[in-house]
């Protein structure tokens, strides 16, 4: 596997940073690859768009930051406005469809959508929307194996929430399978 770059974005409180942590952990600890996870600090990280950046490679990661990500996960309109204009053509854009409205800026991207937050709310806990999204991400990309992502997720959350997070992850997987079966739009 050559170098892969992913940006996960949303607003503070959605668990974006934890998602980056889990993705990197899945790749480096459970898939045996190299992964570097970084995040934005500073004033730009407060309130507005929040982002986690993950680089995955079978070789050691020399350059720790993403330069030209091929996967962009967007869980807020603010993050959409900030990161989509600079996102590469034909990159895979994954959105939370209830929180993000797509416009002509995304017409050259492959787009996959999932109502991650709605699914989480239906489970009674909006906070697991990020885990739903990770289940989806593991299914629709080959960044990490599904087992690695599951293992990384379930070892990164409080033990008493394992059952809830497992359901959230599986729901994301299920939506991912459906999305793959339906084909990629865009």
């Amino acid at each position: 596997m050559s170098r892969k770059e992913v940006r996960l974005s949303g607003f503070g409180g959605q668990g974006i940073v934890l998602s980056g942590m889990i993705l990197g952990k899945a790749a480096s600890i459970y898939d045996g690859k190299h992964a570097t996870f970084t995040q934005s600090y500073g004033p730009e990280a407060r309130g507005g768009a929040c982002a986690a950046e993950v680089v995955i490679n079978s070789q050691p990661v020399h350059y720790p930051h993403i330069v030209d990500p091929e996967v962009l996960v967007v869980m807020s309109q603010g993050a959409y406005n900030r990161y989509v204009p600079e996102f590469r053509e034909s990159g895979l854009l994954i959105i939370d469809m209830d929180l993000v409205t797509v416009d002509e800026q995304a017409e050259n991207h492959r787009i996959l959508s999932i109502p991650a937050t709605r699914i989480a709310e239906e489970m009674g806990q909006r906070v697991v929307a990020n885990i739903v999204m990770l289940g989806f991400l593991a299914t629709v990309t080959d960044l990490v194996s599904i087992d690695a992502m599951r293992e990384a997720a379930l070892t990164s959350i409080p033990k008493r929430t394992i059952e809830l997070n497992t359901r959230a992850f599986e729901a994301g997987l299920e939506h991912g399978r459906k999305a793959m079966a339906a084909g990629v739009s865009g």
Partner: protein
Amino acid sequence: MSRRVSRPSTGKQGVLEGEFFMLGDDACAEGAICAGCRFFAGYPITPATEIAQRMALRLPETDGIYVQMEDELASMNTIVGAAWAGVKAMTATSGPGFSLMMENLGLAIMMECPCVLVNVQRAGPSTGLPTLVGQGDMMQARWGSHGPYSIIALAPTSPQELFDLTIDAFNLSELYRLPVLVMTDAEVGHMTEKVVIPPYDEIERAERPRPAVPPEEYEPYRCPPGELVPPMAIAGEGYRFHTTGLTHDERGYPATADDRVQWSLVQRLIDKIEKNRDRIIRLAEDEMDGAEVVVVSYGIAARTALWPIEMARAEGIKVGLLRLITVWPFPEERIRELAGQVKAIVVPEINMGQIVLEVERCAAGKVPVISVPHPGGGIHKPEIVLAAIRRAAGRESDL
């Protein structure tokens, strides 16, 4: 009646083992704990805060002590005291705090206190860019405290190496009885990667030399014949002695009447490092055989240089990397040797040219030395370093 002094244990209680996806700053704290550090005094500052935070959480779990200090002067002073109390002690800071620690860094050097000071460098001067990377304190690490001395400074490139080098820093500080600097930066400190923590019993831990004589014969600054590091008694063990930041004789008493004591003391403080350069200095070399151009760098700048180095190799330029794991003492011998072998040396660093001055000094005009500066706030764009490598190799650069 004698009072027993209670000290933190250094056992394996609470020490981690295994593979973790871990923040660099956290890896530094875990490295310290694996090295036997059981005392941390500090004042939080971005981007070093997570080290203090982790130590505040972890030291109570490992029978250690965390003290939140009122500022960085007190932090450095407190670990000097902790060293005399017999514990392995550390503090961690960044730019402004590093400046505040300089005076008491000198005290630790003069008193010969083993301890570790971590500087997670950010971009300065002054408050600068608190959350963003810099390597602008490399000369301050060498010369920041007043007066003549030698020091040891290490520069990690990854969370794993930050873990490993924090252990090395403790071991060097114990062996040579001085404060050792871990000169990391905001990139490495705030980066999360896999960190392998080996089993506790497989980690090498050095201990300071201890007195072999009874208390009544002990002189705190008398070295055994042929040695440069005096055995260190611990306060409370019955060895009564005096120690001071004043120039002192072997008994630890001030000796300020003439410069002979100053000569022998300062010379020994320098010699104990410089005469052990071969044991202390560590370098990582990559494809140096037959290299026409060599990149000399350290820390995050050396790591990110690997990308443009690969690009240059793909263009057919023979380029090697000499990475300084130990920045101080500076590997003069190796740079002198290289200066006779290669076409040019390229030195990327995230400051406006600090270690390049040492490289130039050692190259002594025998070979061009190309500085690739960066004021901080970001890491070098690969094309900038690539352009310098091309120029060094005598290739036209379109950049």
